[in-house]
């Protein structure tokens, strides 16, 4: 087993990995850009190494600096988290050449599943159902037109190197095909440096259901059931759950087994996820492999009891999986809400800045994977994900209630977050009925705004502000914000402050 692991990431996922390391008796090394010097992951790690300026290309994506940091601190392995270098085959190679273990799949497996066209070919050969689409890359617009007619409209233009909705275009009829292809190629070129696009049949209002898989380097591959991730904004997930309300035991077993076989076909090791689209007729199609630990992994951890990060580290160390397929059961229901720094009232506009007040929820079945703390400045340079609130309960109805209560208990002031928006989702009747597909937010939450607040509420808010001001005025040693200026308050000043009676 390793004695020290470097985590090539930041934020909540770096914190998550550091915690797993600590439990396993492995020392953790954080890396950080200049703007992350005071970040939570740096505070939590056993050691931390600066790796450069804020832009990711000069720090978290800079392979050499990260490898150097690992060498300098004597780390034996690198955990990439998600995003940044997590699915980068070149980085996996660089690690191997430097004698470091990359906690993830091998470079060839990353290359295979990272290339969507090759991945589709491999899956089709292995008998995995794929979305009807082009099997080869066309050379002319004519070929695209022929293929689109064969598939039947609507079709979708996709970038071969793609992900995250970049380069994607839905085409309803033939006259729109050419401009959509051109736009898709432009976008693909600028996002991935590769303008290759292809066509697929467009599945309308599908559900997004994915299966977690874990495989060791000794030939054992198991699946850990599904996660439903249909609730998305801008092609990005915001609420995930397990189990999915769309599956029955037969379909669930079939999708799980299909995912297992897909990973075997790809020669995949470590933790990974097979994404499927599930259409209205409950037919499912292979979409892609996410060759990393996913943001929503806690949902699976809560229903199966398996610690995925721990398993990743064990597999990377060459150990055998000590769980068989028959040992893995789904129990109860788990839901995750992603807390981003963004404003749902203003089209999810990013909202970096200082977190003035933070109150975290807690209690039975409530887990918060967080990368933030009160007083911390959320930088402008990275992904807006702040934390993930995950709950578990015996059944879905109770899990929804627990989530709503936990969201209400959470307070973040200073920046905008979707806490109220998420609460409205998990208490919406369509959500409670399990009617979640990828058009859910568009259908039910298009012009969402916070419910108007009552008159009493406003009066109380005004009174609180006015009260705080009188308090600050009566105490010259307090700043205008009512806090003691300079160093943190001692118990004595705190006590002294509350002698209202004599005022």
């Amino acid at each position, binding site marked *: 087993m390793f004695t020290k692991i470097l985590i090539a990431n930041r934020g909540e996922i770096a914190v998550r990995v550091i915690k797993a390391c600590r439990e396993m008796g492995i020392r953790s090394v954080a890396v950080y850009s200049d703007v992350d010097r005071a970040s939570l992951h740096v505070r939590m790690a056993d050691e931390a190494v600066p790796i450069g300026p804020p832009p990711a290309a000069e720090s978290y994506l800079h392979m050499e600096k990260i490898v150097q940091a690992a060498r300098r601190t004597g780390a034996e392995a690198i955990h990439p988290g998600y995003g940044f270098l997590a699915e980068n085959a070149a980085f996996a190679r660089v690690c191997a050449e430097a004698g470091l273990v990359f906690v993830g799949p091998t470079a060839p497996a990353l290359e295979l599943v990272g290339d969507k066209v090759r991945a589709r070919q491999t899956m089709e050969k292995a008998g995995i159902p794929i979305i009807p689409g082009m099997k080869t890359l066309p050379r002319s617009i004519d070929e695209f037109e022929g293929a689109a007619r064969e598939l039947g409209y609507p079709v979708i233009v996709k970038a071969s190197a793609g992900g995250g909705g970049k380069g994607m275009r839905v085409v309803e009829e033939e006259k729109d095909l050419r401009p959509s292809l051109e736009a898709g190629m432009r976008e693909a070129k600028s996002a991935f440096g590769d303008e290759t696009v292809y066509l697929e049949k467009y599945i309308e209002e599908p559900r997004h259901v994915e299966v977690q898989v874990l495989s060791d380097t000794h030939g054992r591959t198991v699946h850990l059931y599904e996660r439903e991730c249909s609730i998305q904004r801008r092609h990005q997930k915001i609420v995930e759950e397990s189990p999915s309300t769309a599956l029955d035991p037969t379909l669930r077993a079939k999708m799980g087994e299909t995912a297992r076989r897909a990973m075997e076909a790809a020669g995949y090791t470590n933790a990974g996820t097979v994404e499927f689209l599930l259409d209205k007729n409950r037919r499912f199609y292979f979409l892609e492999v996410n060759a990393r630990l996913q943001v929503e992994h806690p949902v699976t951890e809560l229903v199966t009891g398996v610690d995925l990060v721990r398993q990743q580290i064990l597999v990377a160390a060459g150990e055998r999986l000590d769980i068989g397929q028959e040992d893995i059961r789904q129990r109860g229901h788990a839901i995750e809400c992603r807390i981003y*720094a*963004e404003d749902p009232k*203003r089209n999810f*506009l*990013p*909202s*970096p*800045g*200082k977190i*003035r*007040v933070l*109150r975290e929820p807690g209690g039975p079945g409530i887990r918060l994977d967080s990368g933030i703390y*009160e007083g911390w400045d959320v930088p*402008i*340079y*990275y*992904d*807006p994900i702040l934390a993930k609130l995950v709950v578990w309960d015996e059944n879905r109805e109770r899990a929804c209630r627990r989530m709503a209560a936990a969201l*209400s208990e959470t*307070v973040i*002031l*200073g920046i905008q977050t979707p806490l*109220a928006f998420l*609460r409205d989702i998990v208490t919406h009747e369509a959500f409670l009925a399990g009617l979640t597909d990828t058009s859910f937010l568009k259908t039910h939450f298009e012009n969402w705004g*916070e*419910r108007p*607040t009552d008159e*009493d*509420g*406003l*009066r*109380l*808010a*005004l*009174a*609180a*502000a*006015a*009260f*705080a*001001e*009188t*308090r600050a005025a009566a105490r010259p040693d307090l700043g*205008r*914000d*009512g*806090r003691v200026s300079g160093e943190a*308050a001692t118990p004595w000043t*705190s006590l002294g*402050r*509350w002698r*209202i*009676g004599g*005022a």
Partner: protein
Amino acid sequence: MEFEYLVDGAVQKVAIEVKEGIVLVREGEKTMRAEIVSVSDAEIFLSVDGVGRRIFMARDGGRWLVFHGGGEYVLEEPRKAESTSFRGEDGGKEGGLVKAPMPGKVIKVLVAEGEAVRKNQTLLIVEAMKMENEIKAGRECVVRKVHVAAGDLVDAARPLVELE
């Protein structure tokens, strides 16, 4: 003491009197009596007619952020409110100053001083958290002044472009 705040653009007046652990609140005709149960830096716990009210609050520049009962209230000081109520995404609707809608980095300036612009023409692009935000002209006008250049870091409400 009387206080005045701007909430969602409307002036709200409130008068309070603090005596022996009780806050008396007057707002127009209405009065409210709240007992102060406990107070800390970011939290006030009041009892109003026997019902506990937990209020979280923080000062943020020229405004108070107050959160209770599941809702957040932003209380701006009237004199400062003018400069922060303008939102960049409505850029130039009333002409004048176009401000940054969020903190971020200017990645492109697409207009020059003296240039005539159409309604909805993109003036510049500000990026934050890997998302690009196009700042557009609210109407047809002329660019009087450009305050920023590509690569500049901007705070929310920082003037970007002046239109006329």
